[in-house]
């Protein structure tokens, strides 16, 4: 096989494929399960060509039964394999809820059995998918001890976090944002690398306001930060990357520096991850706070379909800018 000497840009989606491919070729315990991932290559084509390369048993097409798929993957994982399950859409993860929250999450705590399982969950809106093809279900699992949750925002992180997830000895839900699949790309390192689970990253340094966010909203925050720069407001963007366990140190350091904070997520507001972060800051950074903590999140409704409704639903750079101006003036 020849690889082009010229570095080319890799999309977020291709980065996910690369991570799977590399891990499968270097670790024969790794195998894939899911609906339509075989000859079809998955609903989004992440595993296109994988079955030709790795055969039918390592790229296993399953019946339409999420609970059964996850349960089987848990069993295989406990026997020493490293299954990576694809949910066709993150929305359907609810069909596998008890296997994830009861079996996968509690095994090690109760009786010490490791469940090195990865569930890939294509999530998020902005694609006119309506109430059942757009959700951000991370908060359901954020509340479950024993699960690790990651949500990359760039191609680099997408690849590095997936490799880290596959090598992890715990169940990891890997939230991949559908809107970013073919919209973000970058040149990736040729050598093997991982992005460690549990480490946030400052995607833009700033001194006045910290935006704490993840997933597609990182790009919304960066867009807002650029616009605010013109107004002389210097905003820092913290990309959580891992949602559980949270990298609270990076979040707190940023807020101690700026004193002002916006927590931004695409998921609905009530009971979302933002609430937890706000509570941590209130508990542990109280003296550093120089303004009320602001949360920007989707309103508490299902994700609507019609473009004007979905536009209304999704947080936008404009919302961040409006909040930031108030904080700057506070």
């Amino acid at each position, binding site marked *: 096989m020849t690889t082009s000497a010229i570095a080319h840009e890799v999309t977020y*989606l291709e980065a996910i494929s690369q991570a799977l491919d590399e891990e499968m070729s270097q670790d024969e315990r790794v195998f894939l399960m899911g609906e339509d991932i075989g000859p079809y290559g998955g609903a*989004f*084509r992440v595993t296109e060509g994988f079955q030709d390369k790795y055969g039918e048993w390592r790229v296993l097409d399953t019946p339409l039964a999420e609970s059964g798929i996850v349960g089987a993957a848990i069993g295989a994982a406990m026997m020493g394999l490293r299954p990576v399950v694809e949910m066709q859409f993150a929305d359907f993860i609810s069909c596998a809820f008890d296997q994830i929250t009861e079996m996968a999450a509690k095994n090690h705590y109760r009786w010490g059995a490791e469940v090195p399982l990865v569930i890939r969950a*294509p999530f998020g809106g902005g*694609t*006119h*998918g309506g109430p059942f*093809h757009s959700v951000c279900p991370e908060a359901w699992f954020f509340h479950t001890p024993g699960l690790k949750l990651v949500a990359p925002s760039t191609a680099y992180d997408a690849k590095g976090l997936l490799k880290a997830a596959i090598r992890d000895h715990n169940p990891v839900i890997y939230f991949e944002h*559908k*809107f970013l*699949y*073919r*919209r973000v790309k970058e040149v990736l390192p040729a050598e093997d690398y991982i992005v460690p689970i549990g480490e946030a990253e400052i995607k*833009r*340094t700033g001194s006045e306001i910290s935006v704490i966010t993840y997933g597609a909203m990182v790009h919304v925050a960066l867009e807002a930060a650029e616009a605010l720069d013109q107004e002389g407001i210097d905003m820092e963007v913290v990309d959580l990357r891992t949602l559980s366990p949270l990298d609270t140190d990076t979040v707190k350091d940023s807020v101690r520096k700026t*004193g002002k904070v916006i927590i931004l997520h695409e998921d609905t507001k009530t009971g979302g991850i933002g609430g937890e972060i706000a509570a941590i800051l209130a508990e542990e950074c*109280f*003296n*550093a*706070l*120089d*303004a*009320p903590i*602001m*949360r*920007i*999140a*989707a*309103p508490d409704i299902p994700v609507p379909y019609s*473009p*004007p409704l979905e*536009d*209304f*639903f999704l*947080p*936008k750079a*404009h*919302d961040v800018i*409006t*909040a930031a101006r*108030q*904080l700057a*003036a*506070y």
Partner: protein
Amino acid sequence: MATDIVMPQLGESIAEGTIVKWLVPLGAQVKKDDSLLEVETDKVALDIPSPATGALTEILIQEGETVPVGTLLARLDYHSESGNGDSATSTIQSPVSSGHGHLTISGSPDLLSPAVRDLAAKHQVDLSRITGTGMNGRITKKDILEFLDKQGLAGKESGDSLMGQPASVTPSLEEELIPLSSMRRTIAERMVKSRQTAAHVVTFFEADFTTVEPTRQELHLTYLPFVIKAVTQGIHAFPILNSSWSNKGLILKHSVHIGVAVAVEEGLLVPVVKHADQKDLRQLGQEVADLSQRARSKQLQPEEVQGGTFTITNHGGTGSLFSTPIINQPQIAILGVGAVLRRAVVVNESIEIRPMAYLSLAFDHRVIDGATADQFMLMVKSVLEQPSWEVTS
């Protein structure tokens, strides 16, 4: 009437599509809902039916090209069939309102943030003496810092002062507290910040001012205009010296504005000679004299000390030979000019007495490397040592 043909969204994650084939030639007629073109995405290849009956008057995207969803591909001139001006773009409107922008915070004057309380407590500030400038008259961190500034009692920043914590703010009997002037404070802050920001490296050169002398005396000038001249020519040869650092990249400045450090009673000011590269020696001489005089008498306008792209410090005026100056941020280099002294130097295998000076260039190693700095300095040196200076240069 014309209708737009746009790249449709063929699948949830699809961001772009490729035109495989135009099925109707340019100018030809097409019926509503008949196939107009073939489009391919990562997922599928499909015939796209025409949204109206009419002639294909314009093809903007050619076969084989890949464009984002929503891109205008072609235009159709059409005869309205049923009178309803249907257009392929009519369904999607831009958002007018959003579900989040209504979030507001309010600040009543007596609502102090924890950070403000913390700062006030640390410095034992009586908050009733401060007028707030924040939302609805709130007292902000900045208000407290400015108050302290006036009192001359605390560092600019709350906890981590740039100047480090003073040992104690109450002097003993053998000590005396000299309040900091705001100029002192600013200088201190900027100097420390520059050292923390840039990767300072200094390189030293020596220049022979023999050929400068006659012209200098003829025009009654100091050495400085000649040095400015040499620097601007060096910058023309190595424009990177006239840049500044930002996280996104280097910002190369197209105008050459030279700052000249002037010692004043309370400290130091750096007035700026704008477009120094476009001025001759006489103009430079006049301008430097004027700026320094007004700097000392505190008559400079704010814009006269702003916008410098490179700075020269003439420490030789007080007899200093060479120095390691601190870069004036966000510039990337500063040139120190030592005293011009008559020294014995070897010229053409004999010893001669020449007016010599040491030149010290402090540069930011993040931006340029030693080789570039030295090439720049060689250029400055060779300009200064040019065989004969034109009065009008």
